């Protein structure tokens, strides 16, 4: 039996990527909980905060052309470094009224379909795409289910996978569940320093795995969903630094730091032949995971 989780594993393609250049501390569970609080801090910049700083000229699109417009997803095109750039992100609200309007950043199928409409525009007009991920998950409601929440997420992943343009996914806050991954199938997946990325929120896991709503801290410690760990697992390709103390303390500086990463990365991706970009994107997601081989 071979445990193929190290870089020397026999079946190289299933070996997760090991962080080389980024210092990964095995954080204490208290630190992980702090990261989760920071990732959800209500003063943390949301997509529209980044957009207004990175792209003063931004045209937001609205509606899925079938049912309605979902304010939990922001989508549009702006001018960035002398060329058009498309953005899709989950948008939380800051005050009580706005939070309700944005449905706490939990998208409905209409939101993902608005995103797919923008992806089609990216395809037609050759516009690179950046997604900004920040959601506790897709909205769990009967109507959303009836209108195809599962299929909307699946199709969004499939469409992102096939886009011929450069794509970058940035987890800017809380990336939870398929509702986050729907916008996450990109050439590069990166996380802000205090962002988290996980299969489920700690509260959800607490209720399900511990059968006790009060074990969220334990769950967080078990999932270890920090940027550093996601980088170590190969789920994140890079960690983008935040201002000292966290992005919520200085939106302008947070946007500048993200700007630096995006400018460089989009340029790098554009320099790749389309064929290589597509192959690398597929191989990136084909590879992720950790398995044992019980054979020989």
């Amino acid at each position, binding site marked *: 039996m071979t445990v193929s989780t190290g870089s020397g594993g026999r079946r190289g393609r299933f070996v997760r990527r090991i962080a080389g250049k980024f210092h990964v501390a095995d954080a204490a569970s208290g630190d992980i909980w702090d990261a989760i609080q920071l990732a959800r801090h209500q003063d943390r910049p949301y997509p529209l905060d980044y957009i207004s700083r990175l792209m003063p000229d931004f045209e937001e699109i*609205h509606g899925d052309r079938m049912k*309605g417009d979902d304010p939990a997803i922001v989508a549009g095109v702006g001018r960035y470094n002398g*060329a058009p750039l498309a953005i899709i992100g989950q948008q939380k609200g800051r005050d009580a009224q706005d939070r309700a309007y944005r449905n706490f950043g939990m998208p409905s199928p209409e939101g993902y379909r608005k995103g797919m409409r923008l992806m089609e525009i990216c395809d037609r007009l050759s516009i690179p795409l950046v997604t900004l991920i920040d959601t506790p998950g897709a909205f769990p409601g009967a109507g959303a289910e009836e209108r195809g929440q599962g299929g909307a997420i699946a199709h969004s992943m499939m469409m992102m996978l096939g886009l011929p343009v450069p794509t970058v996914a940035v987890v800017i806050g809380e990336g939870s569940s398929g509702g986050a991954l729907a916008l996450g199938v990109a050439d590069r997946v990166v996380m802000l320093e205090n962002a988290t990325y996980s299969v489920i929120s700690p509260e959800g896991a607490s209720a399900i795995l511990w059968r006790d709503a009060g074990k969220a801290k334990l769950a967080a410690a078990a999932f270890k969903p920090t940027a550093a760990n996601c980088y170590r697992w190969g789920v994140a390709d890079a960690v983008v630094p935040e201002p000292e103390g966290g992005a919520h303390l200085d939106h302008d500086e947070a946007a500048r730091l993200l700007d630096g990463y995006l400018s460089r990365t989009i340029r790098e991706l554009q320099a790749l032949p389309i*064929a*290589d970009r*597509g*192959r690398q994107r597929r191989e990136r997601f084909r590879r992720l995971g950790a398995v044992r081989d019980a054979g020989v």
Partner: protein
Amino acid sequence: MERNSYVCAVCGHHFAMTARQRLDHLADDGAWEEIGGDLRAADPLRFVDLQPYTDRIRAAEAKGATEAIISASLAIQGQPCVVAAMDFGFLGGSMGSVVGERFARGAEVAVARGVPFISITSSGGARMQEGVLALMQMAKSIVALDELAAAGLPFIMVLAHPTTGGVWASFASLGDVTYAEPGALIAFSGPRVIEQTTREKLPDDFGLAERQVEHGHVDAVVDRRELPARVGRLLAILERPALDETQSLASQLAQNGTERAARMAQALPSLSRRLRGRPEHAAADSGADSE
């Protein structure tokens, strides 16, 4: 009125505009060059309802317009583009062969010049007096937009009152970005037809621009007075960057990928799908050498 873009200064009502007024309003310095202006309606069915179609055409032409649409080259806020503006005053803005033809020629000029294409609609739908040939103009407008998309050029829609029937069920529904003027009625079937067919009682605001935003069919309601600035800003956002060195390198490399895809395709039966679907993927499959 003209200085206020034909919008009532008191209540904000948007009055109807002719296609010429539309183009004067949008174009920098009011300068535009017509495309397909010589085309006039024919009468392929020798159609007569309460009066002959030819009489209707003559009467409409006598009022000054030559048809229910004008396509023109112009610049908006410094951005060169082609605009196809409809005119409800000409036989209810109905889409007959000339409307389809002028629309298609507008798109073709946009492709030839590599500039975006914009349409402002105001139409009751297909021009019945041209029978099934009017219906076919819906398909012709789709062919034109397909050319535009293949050239990677944007299509921007502005829905003015009213946009109904075959116009809404063809090109007017296919904008990359879609604006509507306040209070514009936007529908495939008009309220009267719906009420007669289904006995539904429709709300007063049925199909209005503001409701269409709620239902996800329109991106934004834009006051006509803001329209030139709003469209100009969007064109500036979408403007293609000049090719710099990095990008020409990238496109060279992409061509290499394509050639490999083509070579590989010769070895496989379902080539059309593969190439159609994802050239980069097909190429990846063919080349262990690149890994």
